[in-house]
């Protein structure tokens, strides 16, 4: 049971007060239907594809199986939160574009969020580590090759000294 004063979440740096109805259901529904943040996709609804991946307090979470009740008071970052105020791209976004890692693009937001969580913990993950970290994110188009390339490229740019 959460008290009324906890009926909020932070989404991309903005505090969102929640109505009783909004505090129910899944985080994915809330983001897509209530906030019109449609970058997180519904590919399966059961936690199997990763298309809905967002950060919850810095951890990659599948929004489709994250209950709003468990996200209360927490800090959510979605793909929409990665662009700078003037439309500058995050190094991961830039690297996905430059590496040819995007085809249909349906997996892309989730892939980038999972990669972001990884690069928040590790500065120079091996290709093997990257593959492990994105194994909850299915992609049917790319065969993953250029996605792994992109994450490596982003890591080099984000942490040139590492």
């Amino acid at each position: 049971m959460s008290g009324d004063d906890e009926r909020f979440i932070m989404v991309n740096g903005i505090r969102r007060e929640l109505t009783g109805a909004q505090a129910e259901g899944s985080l994915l529904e809330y983001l897509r239907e209530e906030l019109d943040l449609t970058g997180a996709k519904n590919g399966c609804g059961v936690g199997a594809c990763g298309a809905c991946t967002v950060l919850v307090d810095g951890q990659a979470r599948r929004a489709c199986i994250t209950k709003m009740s468990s996200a209360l008071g927490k800090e959510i970052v979605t793909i929409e939160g990665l662009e700078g105020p003037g439309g500058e791209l995050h190094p991961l976004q830039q690297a996905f574009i430059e590496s040819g890692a995007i085809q249909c693009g349906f997996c892309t937001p989730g892939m980038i969020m999972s990669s972001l969580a990884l690069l928040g913990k590790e500065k120079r993950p091996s290709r093997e580590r990257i593959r492990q970290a994105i194994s909850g994110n299915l992609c049917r188009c790319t065969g993953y090759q250029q996605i792994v390339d992109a994450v490596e490229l982003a890591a080099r740019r984000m942490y040139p000294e590492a």
Partner: protein
Amino acid sequence: MNTTDGVFRYDARAKATGRATYAADIKLTGMAHAVPVYTRFVRARGLRVEVEAAKAAPGVLAVLVAADVSGQVRYGQIEPDYPVLAQDLINFEGEVIALVVARTRAQALAAAALVVEEAEELPPLLDPESALAPAAPLLRLGKKDNIVNHGKMRRGDAEKALAGCELVLDERFSTQFIEHAYMEPEAAVAIPRPDGVMEIHGSMQHPFSTRRFVAAALGSLLAGVEVFNPPMGGGFGGKDDTAALVCARAALAARAVRRPVKLVYDREWSMRESYKRHPYKLHYRAGFGADGRFRAASIDMLCDSGAYTSVTPWVNWRSLVQCCGPYSVADVRTDVYAAATNNVFTGAMRGFGSPQVNFAVEQLMDMAAERLGLSPLEIRRINMLTQDGETITGQKLDGHVVSLGQVLDAIVRATDFERKFAASSRGAARDGTLYGIGLALSYRGASLGAEGADFCSSIVNCQADGSVILDAAIHENGQGAESVQMLVLAEELGIPLELIRRQRSSTSMIPDGGTTVATRGTIMGGGAVAVAARELKSLMARTLAPKLGVESDRVVFRSGRVGVEGGPGLSWEEAVAAMFAERIYPYAFGTFRAPKVSWDEETGQGDAYFTYVYSCQAAEVEVDAATGAVRLLAMTAAHDVGRAINRALTMGQAYGGMVQAAGMALFEDLAVKDGRVGNRNLDRYKIPRARDVPDLRCILVENADPSSPTGAKGIGEPAIELMAPAIANAVYNATGLRCRDLPIRIDPKELS
């Protein structure tokens, strides 16, 4: 270019930022929501659907059944047999008996549970063999048998030739139902416009096919339906019939409630209802001479078409054309049958009938080589088609470079094949593991071939400031087709990409250019753009030649300049402005018509395709001797794509295709049992994950094709048709066990 290293995708930024708006992301004022109601039967008749309780539920605006369909209930690409809403008969478990429309999706879902279905249940036909048995009940409306298709090839006298062969392999293979598993389930928004037009925004891979389905269901003219295509989250051949019916249902609902209606599919609905890759049973008798020559083949194939026809005959046709692989064989008898059953129906999927036959042929080549004391390379080199060679359909390959030798050599070099083949374990485990390498070779007819009328158009529309709006009637499936078209235009006109905007038109803005299937996106779409660009250049050269004081045939378009090399000229912008000053629009409409092909249905002979893509792929595997688990160590591809217009994206197609094929080889099985799809979501239907696949390599061989305006052929489907047999051959070379059935499963007991 907003990119480096030649990677160009104009829509990448929208996709990387989450701004790309897919069909399910669309929200409109007053929009209602529809959901389908599925049958509980696999086969039944006398369907009665009781909707009163659902209609009375909160928020419900309408509940539609077949009787509410104003146009045709049944429609299809070849046979009009696939019902938009089930009528009287239930033919498979994916049949939609009603459509509930409500203010919110939650209300629609709640009301859907109140729809009552009654029918007389019938025993289902669950496999193609029993469907073809004499006493089988007839499943196809108004037809006298369950044979959806029978394709044949009669070349020489196969039986006689087999009798004279040194070695005759008599082998049976089988392949499984495969789910496309595009990451985005079907979705559609239909808007009943005040001008009477039904506007559709849907996740589908062929707007014009969708328009036909929607117009049929509504009973409307084609011009009364306008289909737009938002970004599509993958298709792989799978977003035609079912995706089109999702659009048609949204349209029926929108018309009924007179407001925009959104219909978004759950993954479970998608997997239950959408068509799959055809499972095949293949029986080959393949005859070889002592010299290793592949002399004759006698082939029977039977595939499951499921409840509806879709494009089964066309899929079978490709199986027929490619039934002996890329080899010249003098005597061939082939019969391919497709049978109607009460399983989920089968249709187009990337590869389109070739992955199944390649799985058989490319293993047979290795088997024959071993029996005859040849290597897998030797037997392929002895038999593969060469320049001016004749295919099994009697087509002489003299119009383009026949590069099987090149792609094979490329793979042999890149993988160090000979050494690794010699080092393969062949059943002798070292440290508990077995190692093997295997390869497969193919040729693949590009574009539709004798399956259909093959032409495509493009519009190049220059604006007063020199910017250009480009359109082409090839749909973006997510592979980057539009970006390729932009690159072609930039190159043809000699202008920077920044000046070009690819307009994503609707079905009302450009003529039907055919579907983005059959590896025809680049060759046909890019070809149409090149033709339109050349029309425009010719118009501009003719118009501006007097002003430049030169002959029009000396005017070239290069580096942002229009004029004579080293002589008089105008900047591109000046040239465009000069056209307007002459009151002649710098605008062109171009059509690329594919060269003529031919086909004889009785003999299976003819010039099947106007050109072919040549490909070779290799796999290296490690098999755990204790568990039989197969791990992929490396996958390598070599493809003669004609010309790679967008290198990184061409490679991306190859990588994606290899991994999909690896899924077919090792991971995927739809587990269709008693007419029901066993695994209806991605938690149980296992497609390859990042950690299941190794780093991939792709070698692009480029022999520009004279029949293609850009020199490019294509890559989409060649990429997927080889890895399953390459892996099967690698597994054999590791374990000594032949895997004739997909997916490959190794019983560790057999490994001792």
